[in-house]
Structures are given as C-alpha cells and as structure tokens.
C-alpha cells in the first residue's frame, strides 16, 4: 500500500512553499464576524507593539470611520499618502501601490482586505495589491469580515438578506500566515452600536439596522468562529504531518465539479467549494463543451466563463474540456486526474422525460462504479430564472435563419403533396408516407432541428388532409390511420433530430478541421522560421486570422525590456505588457489585473523562460475570448514560444561557433604577428648593440645603418597593413570620386619605386579609358600591395606589367610578373587572411596584403582573382564597375 509512504508531490509542494515563504512577506489577517467588533483597533494596537520592537511600520490604508479611539491609535504612525485616480472626470483617492513598493517598509497596514479598488487602478481588488506587496517581501496586516469570504458569501446572504458584493477568494484567506480572530459577544456589539461607536454608511442605515439583529450577529459569529476553527484544525494537521506524529499519508482527495450553462451553476460551484473545504480536498471545476453546448448564444458562454472564474477564486483548478458525450468525457478526465468524487447539479427534468433520458448523475453513476457522485439541489427561484431566460428572444441572425427554415419546410411539404397527388394512381399510401419522411430528412439536414420538427408535423397534417380518406378533411374514416399518424410523427421527429444533429456535427467537424489546419499551418511555418522577426510576423499573421482580432507579438531586447512593435495600435500599453512579461501572468481585458484595459496580454512561456508577450485587441470590445478560442490561443502561444526558444538557441550556438572561429583566427594572428614582428626586432636590437662598439669602420657603420633602416621600413609596412585590415574590417566608408586610373597607377608605382628598384615596371594603359568612380587612396593601396607582392616573390630583374582594359562592362586591371608563379592550388586561398604562398619562408610579410586587396575591391563591387600564365609568372586581376562619368566640359 502506498498509504504509508510520503506523497512525493506533497513533499515537493511543501518544500516549494517553504522556499517561497522565506522571501515573501507575511500576511496577518484580523478576522471578525462583522463591522464594529474592533478589527482595525486591534490591528493598530498590534502595529504599535511592533513599532516598540523596532519594526518599521507604515500605514497604507486605514479607515477610522470617524471613530476617535481608532483615530487616536493612528497618532505616531507614518501614513502613506493616497494616490488620486481619475475616474469619470472625478478624482478619487486610492491606495498608492507603487508608492508603497518604492517606500519598501517592513510592515504595512492595509485595512479591509476585500475592498474593491477605484476603476483605473492596477488591480481591481485590494487583495491583489496585497499579493504584490507580499511578493515584494513586505509584511502586511489587514482586516476582514466573515461575510466577505467568497465561499460563505451566499450563506451570509441567506442569513442576513444582504448580498455583499465585495468578496475575497478563500485561497487568499487560507494562505494567510496568521489569522487573529477579533471577537465580541453580540450583546456588547449591540451596546456599542447604540452608543454610536459602530460606523454605518448613511444611505444604508436602515438596511444596516436590519443587519445588526441579534440573530444575524449570532449566526455571523458562529461562521467566523467555525472558519477560524477550521483553520486551526488544518494547522494542527499540518503540524502533525511536519512532526510525523502520525505517519499516515493519505492520497489527497480530488473533487470534480461539472458546471453547465444553467443559472444554478453558481450555487453548484459554491457547494462544491464548501464540500471540498470540509473534505480537505483539492477540487477541479470543469466545463465540458459538447456539440450541443457549442450552439449556445455568446452571452451564455460568457456566463460559463464567469462561473469558471468564480470557481478559480474559490480555489479550484479550472478546465474546459470538449467531447461529444458529456459523461464519457467527464469520466475520462476524472480518471486521468485521480478524481474520487464528482459533483453535478440535479437534473431539472420532470417525470416522463427523466424516464426517457436519464439524468447526467444517473449516467455517471452507471458508467463509473469507482467514483462517488454527488448531486446538488437547485433553488426554486433560480429555476424560474432559468426558464425565463429561455424565453428570451433569440438573436436576429438565428431568427432570420429560423424563418427561412420554416418557409422551406412549408414549401417542401407543399411540393411533396403536389408530386404525390400526381402519382397517387401508381402509389400505395404507405409509399406516400415514405416520401414525406424523405422530405423531413432533407429539410432537417438543410435547415436544422426546428425546421425538421415543423416539417414533421406539417407532413402528418398534409398526409391526413390530402390523402387519408375521407380526403380534404382532417377527419379519419379508418381508425387504423391514427396509428399510422402516430408512428409517422414519431419517426419523422426522430429522423429530423438525427439528421439535424448529423448536420451540426458535420459543421463542427469542418470547423475543427479548419482550426487544426490553421494550427498545422502555423506550426509548419514556424518550423521553417529562422529569425525572431520571422516568427513575430508569422505569429501575428496567423493569430490575426484565427482570432479575428488585432494581435501584437512583443519581444524583449537583451536588457529584458519589451520593444514596441511597429504600427502598434495606441490601445496597447507597453507598460502593461512589460508587467505581464515580468510577472509571467496574463493581464488586461477579461483577467483580474487591469480588466479595464481594452487589450488582453498573455505571456509566451517557453520551457526555459518567458519569451515575449501576446497582446490581443478584440475587434469587439466587450466580448471576451470563447473557450475554444482561448484553447487555440494557448496552443498557438506554446508553438510560438517553442519557435522563439529554438531560434534563441540556434543564435546561441551560432555565436559560439563565431566565437570559436574568431578565437582561432586571433591565435593565428597572434602567432604570425609575433613571429614577423619579433624577427626584425631581434635583428634591430642586435644591430644597435653592434653600432655601440668603437671598433667598427665607417663603412661598416653605414652598412649597419642601412640594414636598420630597411628593417624598420618593413616593420612600418607591416603595421600599416595590420591597421588597414583592422580599419577595413570595422566597415570602411568609401570616399569615391571620379578618377583617372592612369593617375592612380602612377602614384602607386611612385610609392613602390624604392622597393621595386631591381625590377622593371611597365604600364600598358590605353589613354582613352574612361574615368572610374573609386576611392583613389584604397585602390592605390591595392596596386601597391600587388606591386610589392610581385617584387617580393620574383627574382631581381623580373618584369612587372600593369595593364588595364574594359572587359564585359567592367574595368579590369591586372598586375602580371614573369616570376615563378603561384604554388599549385593556392589560387583562391591566397586572398584569405594570414595565408602565404610559402609557409614560414624567409620572405617577409604576414599574408595580409592580398586579404586587404580583396576587401577593398569587394567594397567597390568588384572581384579579384589570381592565376598563373604562360610561360611562367603570376597574374593578379581585379575588376571595377564602370559608371557613367560626368561629361567633360571642354575649354571654349
């Protein structure tokens, strides 16, 4: 049996809780039965005690309601100024959450935990402000009346007759670190009330007087005491579990409540919540969307969403399932989640139909022997309300379609009657019935259930009137026909029902197929996306189409700040999006945080971290997303998140490769540079020490000075090359001007004159060459490098020829020599950085010259190549694009 072994999930949860608790602030609730018991007073007294201990206490909000005793307690406390929030052109004071977070006190006092904030605040409820304060590590003292607890809300309403609108989710209360009960016997409270010591709002004075009856007060006191006792009980258990006083680990009970579209769903959820609380069980609220339920009008579906949200506030986990058969889907889910108890509402059907079609509870009980099924009763008035709801007019579109359906049914029956009348000579009456049934089937398939039912009835009537003797009356001669009518009607009704359902399911299937297709397309496109930008574009395009809303995908930059997208509609607030990104919680329209915002913001959570925020701006401002849209959105968000994560890691991998590559290059640079700089430096040091000697002849001195000069000039060249390369790599800006190539060649030849003293340089440039638009200094550099190269790799006395010609629309310039030529296979590699024809040769240079040439030529839009030519020697050729030089103004 697993019962004796600690539940690992529970242990993990415990650990997680402890970890979070270590950073979170502590919440202490001063809990009372009703107003006037002295909660605020008790809270302030406790705060003073803490101040005496040296704790830093700040008053966030405290309502003194003009009571002098309470006001006196406020003296000596730092009170945080309230923020003015503009609402409907009025300025209303409200708690300043950001101010408090900036002030960061050790303890803050927040009166009336269930208070609703002024519209326009960050959170609609004060308890959400408190949550944020706690998350920021600030301790909070607060007050609460029992009637504000969500799960007790309806009971309190029944007892006192006053419905309280401001409620607090039970899980907030349960999660509080401390609850202190502030208790006052009803008689004393009433005495205080008579003495005017209890605050009452003026407009509600009478209602309040009704409220403060002894019976009410007793009941409320009992509720408060019980709730506190429950808490103490739970603490006792937790303590025992901690101390392993009784090593009994029971598998946790799970309770599942199935909500439907009916008005009684709210009560069902509250009952389930109380049941779960008394059983100390986790509970799940689900809504199963069957094809039949998908037909519901939008407002009813909205209601279901609201009920699910209520369940969430009461501490439930919620889920929307979809399946064809309600009981089967529900049970499958229940089994997958280890649910031991299912709660359903009592069926509203009466007598006969219940016999005809068993209630959900019965079906569940039949199909699942291992699960307890609880049935919750309805309130009578709620049923009334439900019926009245049904009578509401259907929306215009449905009404129009129904009208067409009825007309078609009428027409169809008439047509069948006409055709049959003509064929009556050949037909038996039984076949006439068949024809009518066929009509019903067709009509039901085409126009749905209502038209089908209508045509069933019309068919029976027409059959009776036109064909059953005596004809043209509704009277029936042979009573046998009455039976025929009955069977015909029943068959027609069943057929029409089935046909209509078939049609509906086909529509649903097509719908679903379309959605699957869309998801598949999205997935496929995302799979081929290579950049974040592509993913953003793909995601937005698909979601726009799927949700028929404006969707923005916001991606953070490297400093975790969301970047505004281009063409962002003004309704989308980057601040909210950033909050969503930072807190990894949805916000905006239809959520608990900033619900007044027109757009919905959803974090895109990938396995490793949040990768962005989806902002959805619905085309219709009031509609929230339907369950299937929500599911679709979640699926899309997950796909987008995964794609973003994939791209992120691809980038990381690429960066690593680039880093490795540049590391390798750096090593090669360092080794070549250090070798090539150190060699001449060594000889320079040696030569200078040699110069210091007195024994040298003047001739020797001159010779040494000559070598020193030569070596240093070489080094200077090398450094120039390195600097040039660095400059070119950091992105060179070409200083292009119209130049005569001849002139550039001339200055290059002039610059290399000294180095090429032993060589013969020939120039073969036709004088009619047009001007070219180039950066003369850089092209000169190319020529100088090529000339020096030629000088370096050819023996003295060789000939170097510079020639230029126009070749396929480009200006081709080549530098040819008649030396030994290039080593085999080096033709293209020779232009790579730090590559030299001959490894570690005594020929100086670090292999940068040609790489610089290539960079410069390519920056000009040309190409450079090298090859050997006959009989021997190397040719380096580069091309430059020919432009249209400005027309020369001739001298007049």
């Amino acid at each position, binding site marked *: 049996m697993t019962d004796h072994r600690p539940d690992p999930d529970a242990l993990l949860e415990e650990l997680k809780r402890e970890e979070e608790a270590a950073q979170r602030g502590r919440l202490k609730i001063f809990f009372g039965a009703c107003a006037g018991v002295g909660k605020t007073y008790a809270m302030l007294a406790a705060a003073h005690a803490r101040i005496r201990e040296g704790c830093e206490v700040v008053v966030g909000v405290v309502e003194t309601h003009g009571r002098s005793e309470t006001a006196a307690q406020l003296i000596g406390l730092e009170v945080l100024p309230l923020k003015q929030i503009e609402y409907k052109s009025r300025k209303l004071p409200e708690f300043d959450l950001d101010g408090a977070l900036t002030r960061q006190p050790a303890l803050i006092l927040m009166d009336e935990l269930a208070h609703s904030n002024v519209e326009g605040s960050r959170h609609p409820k004060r308890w959400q402000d408190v949550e944020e304060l706690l998350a920021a590590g600030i301790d909070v003292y607060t007050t609460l009346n029992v009637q504000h607890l969500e799960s007790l809300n309806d009971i309190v309403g029944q007892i006192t007759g006053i419905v309280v609108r401001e409620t607090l989710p039970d899980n907030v209360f349960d999660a509080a670190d401390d609850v202190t009960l502030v208790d006052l016997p009803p008689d004393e409270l009433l005495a205080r009330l008579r003495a005017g010591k209890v605050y009452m709002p003026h407009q509600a004075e009478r209602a309040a007087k009704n409220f403060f009856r002894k019976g009410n007060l007793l009941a409320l006191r009992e509720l408060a005491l019980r709730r506190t006792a429950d808490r103490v009980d739970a603490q006792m258990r937790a303590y025992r579990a901690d101390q392993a006083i009784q090593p009994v680990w029971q598998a946790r009970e799970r309770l599942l409540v199935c909500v439907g579209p009916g008005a009684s769903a709210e009560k069902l959820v509250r009952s389930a919540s109380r049941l779960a609380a008394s059983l100390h069980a986790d509970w799940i609220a689900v809504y199963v969307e069957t094809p039949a339920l998908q037909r519901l009008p939008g407002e009813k579906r909205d209601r279901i969403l609201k009920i699910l949200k209520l369940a969430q506030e009461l501490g439930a986990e919620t889920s929307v399932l979809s399946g064809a058969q309600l009981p089967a889907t529900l049970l499958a889910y229940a089994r997958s989640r280890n649910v031991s108890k299912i709660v359903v509402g009592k069926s509203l059907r009466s007598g006969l139909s219940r016999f005809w079609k068993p209630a959900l509870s019965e079906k569940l009980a039949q199909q699942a022997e291992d699960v307890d099924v609880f049935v919750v009763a309805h309130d009578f008035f709620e049923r009334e309300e439900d019926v009245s709801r049904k009578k509401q007019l259907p929306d215009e579109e449905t009404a129009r379609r129904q009208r067409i359906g009825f007309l078609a049914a009428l027409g169809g029956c008439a047509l069948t009657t006409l055709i049959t009348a003509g064929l009556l000579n050949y037909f038996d009456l039984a076949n006439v019935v068949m024809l009518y049934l066929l009509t019903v089937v067709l009509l039901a398939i085409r126009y749905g259930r209502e038209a089908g039912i209508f045509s069933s009835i019309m068919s029976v009537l027409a059959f009776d009137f036109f064909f059953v003797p005596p004809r043209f009356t509704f009277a029936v001669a042979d009573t046998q026909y009455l039976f025929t009518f009955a069977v015909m009607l029943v068959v027609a009704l069943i057929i029409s029902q089935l046909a209509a359902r078939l049609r509906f399911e086909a529509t649903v299937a097509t719908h679903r197929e379309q959605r699957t297709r869309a998801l598949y397309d999205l997935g496929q496109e995302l799979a081929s996306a290579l950049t974040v930008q592509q993913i953003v574009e793909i995601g937005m395009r698909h979601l726009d189409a799927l949700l028929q809303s404006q969707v923005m995908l916001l991606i953070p930059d490297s400093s975790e700040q969301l970047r505004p997208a281009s063409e962002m509609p003004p309704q989308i607030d980057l601040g909210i999006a950033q909050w969503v990104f930072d807190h990894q919680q949805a916000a905006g329209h239809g959520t608990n945080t900033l619900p007044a915002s027109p757009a919905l913001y959803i974090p895109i959570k990938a396995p490793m971290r949040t990768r962005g925020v989806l902002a959805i701006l619905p085309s219709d401002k009031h509609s929230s997303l339907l369950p299937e849209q929500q599911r679709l959105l979640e699926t899309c968000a997950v796909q987008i998140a995964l794609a973003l994560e994939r791209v992120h890691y691809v980038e990381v991998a690429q960066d690593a490769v680039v880093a490795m590559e540049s590391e390798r290059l750096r090593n090669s640079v360092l080794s070549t540079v250090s070798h090539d700089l150190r060699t001449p430096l060594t000889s320079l040091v040696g030569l200078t020490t040699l110069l210091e000697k007195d024994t040298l002849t003047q001739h020797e001195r001159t010779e040494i000075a000559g070598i020193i*000069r030569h070596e*240093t*000039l070489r080094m*200077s060249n090398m450094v*120039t090359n390195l*600097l*040039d390369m660095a*400059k070119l790599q950091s992105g060179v800006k070409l*200083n292009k*001007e*119209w*130049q*005569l190539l*001849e*002139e*550039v*060649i*001339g*200055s290059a*030849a*002039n610059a290399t004159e000294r180095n090429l003293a032993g060589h013969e*340089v020939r*120039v073969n*440039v036709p*004088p009619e060459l047009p*001007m070219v638009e180039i950066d*003369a*200094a850089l092209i*000169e550099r190319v020529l100088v490098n090529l000339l020096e190269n030629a000088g370096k790799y050819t023996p003295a006395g060789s000939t170097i020829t*510079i020639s230029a010609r126009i070749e396929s629309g480009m200006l081709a310039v080549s530098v040819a020599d008649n030396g030994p030529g290039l080593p085999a296979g080096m033709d293209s590699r020779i232009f790579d950085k730090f590559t030299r024809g001959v490894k570690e040769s005594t020929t100086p240079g670090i292999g940068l010259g040609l790489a610089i040439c290539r960079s410069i030529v390519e920056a000009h839009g040309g190409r450079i190549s090298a090859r050997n030519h006959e009989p021997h020697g190397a040719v380096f050729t580069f091309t430059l694009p020919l432009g249209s*030089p*400005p027309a*020369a*103004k001739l*001298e007049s």
Partner: protein
Amino acid sequence: MNEAPITLVVIEDEKPIRHFLAKSLEDAGMQVFEAENGKRGLIETATRRPDLVILDLGLPDMDGIEVIRRIREWSNLPILVLSARSQETEKVNALDNGADDYLTKPFGVAECLARIRVLLRRQSGSAASQQVFQFGAIKVDLVNRLVEKAGEAVHLTPIEYRLLSTLIRHAGKVMTHRELLREVWGPSHSESSQYVRMYMGHLRHKLEDTPALPKYILTETGVGYRLKTGE
C-alpha cells in the same frame, strides 16, 4: 656662409622624433628650438621668429590645425606638417588652412631636408622670379608663355598652361585640389576636383614620356599634385 644660421621651431610631442629631428637639422647647420606642445610651440614661434616651423598635427593640448591658424594670423612663414599616412583629409585640411607642405611618417632625414630647402627657397622668391624654368627635357618660358619639350614646341591650352605655371610657381610643394582650382579657375569657380584631374592628365600626356609613370607631375593621392624638379 656668413649670414645668420637658419632657425627652425619643431613642435612635436614625441620626444624621440623631436630629438632626432633636432640632431639631424643641427648637423645640417640649422638652429633648432624644440616645443613639446602647441601652446609652447606658439610661444617659441612668436619669440624666436624662425625661418620655418615643423609641426606635428597630433598634439596633446591643441589641434594642429588650430596652431596653423594662430601662426597664420600674424605670419606667413613656411609651415611643414608631419602626419601619419592614411590621414589624407587631415593633410588636405592642414594645407588648405595655410600649411605649406607635409611629410608622412615615417620619413627619412634626407627627405625632410629636401622639403625644408624647397620651402625656404620658395620663400626667398628665387623660383618665381626666374624667366625660364626647366625640368628634365621641358623648358618653360614664363615671360613669353612658351613650352618646349626636347627642343620642340608643345601646344598647351590656356587652362593647361595656367595649371603648369601654377605648379611651377609652387615647384616642389604640394598643391591641393582646392588651391589649384582657386589659382587656375579663379576664386569664383566651383568646379569639382575631377576637372583638375582631367587637365592634369592632358598635361602629363603632353609633357611626360610615360604618362602612367610620371617623373615630374606627381600625384599625392587624396591630397593633390606636386611638381618634382631636379632634386
């Protein structure tokens, strides 16, 4: 020579360069005053009244161009600028602001002395006053506006002649595109430097033996032109 020795001010922040310059110039019989920054240099120039200033463009305390401007406020003594290669725009800027010539680092003593001599001679006005100017096989009669190459007359267009005579007037010194445009086309002309290049090309074809490997009309890439005479 019994005249007073030639005096120079060297404004250069790098001590080794300053010293090597001073040593070699003194060896050549000149008197050298050193300054390690722009401010000091301006004071030295004003008090010593030198014949020539050698100025490094990269000074720690002030912009070299600014030093040129300050000197030009009161004197037109020759200024030789030292600069690193690949700073063509800086060189042009210095020349256009009144510097007379430049030397690219690293440079040799011989090169430096040659430049100094050219500048000093030009200052004394000897080149400009000649009636006939000769370089290589080319003979230019500046009074009669006649150009001969190896004894044969060369026909030049008016602009070509003006270009040549301008180069002769500043023989040995670099002329920027802007200076040439101003002197040849006149101050009101706003022709672009490609015209200078084009006419310079024509001139070379008429005067040089191998226009692509010129011996006299040299291009200082990115800066301008220099007429190289005998030395």
